[in-house]
């Protein structure tokens, strides 16, 4: 037990070492969770938005999948070369 207590006392500097690690842990985990939640929320919103409007959007058969020719060509800036993947 004493080894454990010695470990946590950090040679008397516990009041400095642990808060440093604690802030790092808190900040990094909050950032991780917030980022993941934001991704999940957006993905859900997108799914529901597309589910709610399949009639208008889904039927448009687009050759070769992906965006329609016009939309795809908008991806190019100067020369209207179609580059599908960013």
């Amino acid at each position, binding site marked *: 037990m004493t080894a454990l207590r010695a470990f946590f006392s950090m040679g008397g500097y516990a009041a400095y070492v642990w808060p*440093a690690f604690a802030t790092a842990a808190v900040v990094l985990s909050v950032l991780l969770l917030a980022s993941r939640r934001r991704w999940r929320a957006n993905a859900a919103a997108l799914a529901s938005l597309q589910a709610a409007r399949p009639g208008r959007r889904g039927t448009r058969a687009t050759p070769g999948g992906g965006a329609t020719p016009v939309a795809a060509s908008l991806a190019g800036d100067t020369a209207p070369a179609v580059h599908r993947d960013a």
Partner: protein
Amino acid sequence: MHRFANPARFLRITDAVLPWSAALTIVLLALGLYYGLWASPVDYQQGATVRIMYIHVPAAWMGMMIYSLMAIASAVALIWRHPLADLIAKAAAPIGASFTFICLVSGSLWGAPTWGTWWVWDARLTSVLILFFLYLGYIAIWQAFDDPTRAARAAAIVALVGFVNIPIIKFSVDWWNTLHQGESLFTGHGSEIDPTMLRPLILMALAFTAYFITVLIYRVRAEIIARKLRVLRLSAIEG
């Protein structure tokens, strides 16, 4: 920026990378903490507070590395108008700001026992503090514009201007510090760091990098989907 750029390739790549980076983060973090907190010697002078170095130094490295990455991504976005570069820079900023904040807090905690106060205008800490405000400026400019494409280009300019100024600010703050104060606590640990201390430092730095990649993937995906949502909602109005 292209409304219809198809980020399929990016999504495919990150699908593969995500599980690996997440697993790597956990493993490296565990190893780093084990070696950092347990299996490494105590400093003869500072005692156990030297362990804070394993958070403080990697966080400083990450803060500067991420800002450089943002500057490169911004340059790519401005010059080649690559539609994803903006999103990567925007997604990276909060992560960089968090690391810089961690670096400041851990720096203050590390110095407190020997300085007797919570903050000393040490050259390194002051530069990191200024870097923190560069991050805040970058994040603020994104939110200032209501049109995302304008915000993207304005933020790219801010990132590049900031990046050009970082060495000048670093030089002037270091120079200012030697003028007013001479020696500072941190110079000690730079050179004669023995290998047993170096190992946790590197492990923690790698752990932070893996963490950065993981969170960056989440945030960039959220941005891509957010853009699609905007496009869908806009076309709903036009349609």
